[in-house]
């Protein structure tokens, strides 16, 4: 592979979520214009966005309960993640094995995922088996069993996963970055928990999280496929009608990534050092959110055409992968990136990245770079809309971001509207005078002499 995109420094825990993050800005106008997004409200008060696609007898659904691992109570780190592993482990009268065999018999797919700010669910079914699939999902959402042996089984898997992750340089670098930059805030805690918290987790903990966060008022549902609004209405009430009206969410305060100690090395006996770096970015409500996104594309987000790719990889061969991104969360927004370079040279890679950040802060992108980035972002829009699954993921992400269905049609114009002045201003605001918060895992050489101020 010429290049593999990695999750960013503080990537949302799950692949599902990180896909949403990466693709959020790349929605296709052409498809979108042809696409009719209906807002469906069920008699029971559940709202969903629906895109009908009747040419294939398949239905796909994505939904999110606002909350996510930021709602893990203190000392219960990883409970949302644990719950995501439990919901297909039996519900109602069906034990885990029976439940899963039922799913296989009707060829449905159901999955759950936790992220920082939301708990995600996904359903795919053949139209013919819709009612049976909906009944199973409804059971999983409203009557999970949390059988003792299933809890122990999932606990064992999570502990094994943690044991492996503790020795995985990428995971350690990311977790440590979050811990450093969001110290004392729920965003700084490990989304997958720790050996200690997972060991102690009880079914009451799982039940408490589930009862508190699965509700109607924090739910968003997107459906793409072979179903009309009237039928969907019924499905929505079957699936979610039994949930409580209101979620009991603990308020999460707004936060900026910040660290007293901006640089941390975690010793690990690996030949290649893995670094994560990042800074505060602007929330979506900021007028420079879109300009900053375009600037990031020039710097490191456009991957194989970015400045960092050119300087770190193409000119010097210092890394296989170097990338940056801007990720909005409910209570913060982060510019972040990653690079991996052999221990002897990692200091060079980080110096180059700092120099490029300094340069773009001072000068902004060039007219040509701005034009190229906008052409890429607007032109590749359609690529993000060529399958039912992608459409559902994209729309759910937009909705979670507080956008309306019409944003799909406005999005390219917003990118186009970014002027060179906007981009320079955003670059300056984003980067000028800021010290990167950096974590490095490995046995890096020469980092002691690094110009990065300590403390």
């Amino acid at each position, binding site marked *: 592979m*010429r290049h593999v995109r990695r999750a960013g420094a503080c990537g949302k825990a799950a692949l599902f979520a990180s896909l949403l993050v990466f693709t959020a800005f790349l929605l296709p106008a052409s498809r979108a214009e042809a696409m009719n997004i209906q807002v469906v409200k069920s008699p029971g008060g559940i709202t969903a966005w629906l895109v009908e696609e009747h040419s294939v007898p398949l239905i796909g659904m994505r939904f999110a309960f606002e909350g996510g691992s930021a709602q893990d109570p203190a000392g219960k780190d990883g409970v949302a993640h644990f719950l995501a592993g439990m919901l297909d482990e039996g519900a109602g009268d069906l034990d885990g094995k029976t439940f899963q065999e039922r799913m296989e018999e009707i060829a449905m797919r159901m999955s759950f995922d936790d992220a920082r700010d939301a708990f995600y669910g996904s359903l795919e079914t053949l139209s013919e088996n819709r009612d049976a699939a909906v009944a199973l999902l409804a059971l999983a959402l409203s009557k999970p069993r949390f059988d003792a042996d299933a809890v122990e089984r999932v606990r064992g898997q999570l502990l094994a996963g943690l*044991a492996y992750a503790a020795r995985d340089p990428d995971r350690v670098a990311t977790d440590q970055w979050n811990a450093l930059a969001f110290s004392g805030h729920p965003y700084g805690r490990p989304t997958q928990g720790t050996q200690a918290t997972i060991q102690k987790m009880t079914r009451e903990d799982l039940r408490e999280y589930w009862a508190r966060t699965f509700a109607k008022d924090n739910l968003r549902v997107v459906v793409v496929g072979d179903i009309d609004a009237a039928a969907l209405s019924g499905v929505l009430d079957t699936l979610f009608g039994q949930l409580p009206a209101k979620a009991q969410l603990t308020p999460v305060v707004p936060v900026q990534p910040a660290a007293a100690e901006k640089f941390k090395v975690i010793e690990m006996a690996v030949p290649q050092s893995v670094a994560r770096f990042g800074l505060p970015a602007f929330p979506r409500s900021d007028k420079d959110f879109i300009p900053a996104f375009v600037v990031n594309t020039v710097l490191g987000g456009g991957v194989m055409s970015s400045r960092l790719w050119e300087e770190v990889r193409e000119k010097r061969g210092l890394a296989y992968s170097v990338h940056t991104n801007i990720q909005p969360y409910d209570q913060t927004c982060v510019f972040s990136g990653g690079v991996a370079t*052999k221990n002897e040279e990692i200091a060079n890679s980080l110096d180059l990245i700092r120099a490029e950040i300094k340069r773009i802060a001072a000068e902004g992108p060039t007219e040509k770079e701005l034009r190229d980035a906008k052409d890429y972002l607007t032109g590749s829009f359609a690529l993000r809309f060529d399958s039912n699954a992608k459409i559902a993921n994209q729309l759910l992400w937009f909705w979670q971001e507080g956008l309306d269905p019409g944003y799909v049609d406005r999005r390219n114009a917003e990118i186009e509207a970014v002027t060179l002045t906007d981009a320079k201003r955003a670059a300056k605001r984003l980067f000028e005078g800021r010290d990167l918060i950096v974590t490095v895992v490995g046995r890096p050489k020469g980092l002691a002499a690094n110009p990065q101020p300590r403390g």
Partner: protein
Amino acid sequence: MLQSGLCRSTLLFTLTFVLAMFTATIDTLKASPAVSSVTEFKLDNGLQVIVVPDHRAPVVTHYVWYRVGSADETAGVSGVAHFLEHLMFKSTDKIASGAFSKIIAKLGGQDNAFTNYDVTGYYQRIAKDRLKTVMEMEADRMVNLRLTEREVATEREVILEERRSRTENNPSAILSEQMSAALYQNHPYRIPIIGWMHEMAKLSREDAMSFYKRFYAPNNAIVVVAGDVSVDEVRNLAQAAYGSLKPNPDIKERVRPQEPPHRAPRRVELKDPRAGNASVRRYYLTPSISTAAPGEAEALYLMMKIAANGSTSRLYQKLVSEEKIASSAGGWYSGSGLDSGSIGIYAVAAEGVDLGKLEAAMDGVLHELREKGVTEGELDRAKKAFIAEFVYESDSQSALARRYAEGALLGQTIEQVNDFPAAIARVTVADIARVAAKHLDIRNSVTGTLIPVPSEPEREAALKPEAGKL
């Protein structure tokens, strides 16, 4: 809706098929006009072209797959196929150094490439009106690649970093590499695709260029276009872009050294401070889709689905749910190799469980499979799940393009690719019993264990006497 094209109609075909499995018969489905929508043709220079119409969005996926992979390398230059894949993004007379991906991005497209044992593939996903341009760019670099010594030296550092990221930093990847090296005694599948570090470090411009000249030619390539296009459009564009390229008369049938009979099982043990929990895995050498007797590969897919895929599988149920000696367990059949397939099976030990016990339990599951086969109920469920996966995967344009490209690579016709779900449906419990008895042969296997040991600092700490006790 039939005019709407192949993606959709193939999907429809398969779906009808699945539904039929649930309710009635499948025979009439083979006559479905949908399967005839994927079209294949050859240009005079030997370039094979497959068109997969999918009109849901105004975009295309353009694949160029060369019938060459790491298993075609000569001894001593391991990694050169993958190295060349990287270098293909450098320059030609028309494209400035490193500009290829920038041009694609400027056009609103995304591109990448990959190397495997048997194939090297390049792709762009882009708005349909750019198809002409990307075809011209691929045709250009098929024959006009230029490389400077400096580009080669820099990119060599990149692939070394890639190996560090993928393998050196990852004990599980190191064990897999060691096991493959032991599984194959003669075939080049034993050599890692990315190459051995010491040989990668010496790869030269000449190594890359001679590999390029030997293998990159229209008569050694497969072009697949999936997306919002018609067969005629693609035929015209392909003829215009690729038609004038000269074939390489020296392209020969691919003959790689084959395996002798295996006589003794092999064992590999890796101790590593970064191992996580102890685990055991095993690979068996098997036929692949292209080397198996008719129906055998399909039976292997279903056998492994029943034995080891997912939490309803026998292996998971036995080791994880019932005996509680593993925290996870699973397995697969890999059938897409040109010369050989393999079965893989693994289990991660639960806290404090002895690996010997874990392996014995794993062997118990395999033994029962060999002795007693599977039940009709298990087989029925596995078929439905397997075919459903096929259907859901068809939602992705890239996956569809890949499906037909892989088929072409293995020498399958479009009809054979389309027939896969039906072939799966034809497998009987007797077929599974037969492949289980034949291929779960320990002599054809390698068993690997990954065992955590204390890291250096931990070892040092353990050796130091505790303060105050002296």
